[in-house]
């Protein structure tokens, strides 16, 4: 079946602009995660959704970052007033993990490469 998809694959924006990144998880996956990966760095956890709820938003780096998930499916990560330090690859992952359940295999999308000029 189809894997996790993300759009756009690349996004170039100017400092101060808002951007929206989209993630389409694997159908039926209740858990959804957003990560950020800067050039040459490891993955930085941003937020975790279980259904439409986000039990843990503590990884969001500032209040310019927000995310939502609707219908237990598609998720959007919004970055307002982008800064150059926001430049990174934003990765989305989904899994079958149930609320309160242990961490299970996460399936990652190809990522969105964000460049803030």
């Amino acid at each position, binding site marked *: 079946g189809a894997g*996790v998809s993300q759009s756009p694959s690349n996004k170039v924006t100017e400092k101060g602009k808002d951007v929206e990144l989209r993630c389409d998880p694997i159908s039926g996956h209740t858990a959804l*995660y957003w990560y950020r990966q800067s050039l040459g760095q*490891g*993955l*930085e*956890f941003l937020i*975790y959704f*279980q259904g439409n709820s986000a*039990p*843990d938003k*503590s*990884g969001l780096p500032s209040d310019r970052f927000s995310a939502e998930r609707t219908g237990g499916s598609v998720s959007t990560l919004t970055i307002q007033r982008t800064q150059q330090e926001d430049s990174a690859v934003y*990765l989305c*992952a989904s899994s079958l993990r149930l*609320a*309160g*359940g*242990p*961490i*299970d*295999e*996460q*399936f*990652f*999308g*190809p*990522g969105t490469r964000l460049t803030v000029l």
Partner: protein
Amino acid sequence: LAKTTQPISMDSYEGQEVNITCSHNNIATNDYITWYQQFPSQGPRFIIQGYKTKVTNEVASLFIPADRKSSTLSLPRVSLSDTAVYYCLVGVGGATNKLIFGTGTLLAVQP
């Protein structure tokens, strides 16, 4: 929160067995240990997950000692295509989710 430490890089040759160790001294009782592989310009891919002792699947083995303060990913007979970054991941189970990826180990396999 459990923090992980891995070697930054490792070198190997085709056909050799490679062991990558991850240190996680502050692992919590309900934490699982998971390893991911990442190729350039791709998202990470799940390799293996375990809680204690030994877990084996078709691509790797994971060894976890009794104190669970470290774990070792073992890749048998590596090939050039195994050249990638390998991440050790220790996460908190339950309703909240704070996943911490290690720095990752760049494994370079040579002919």
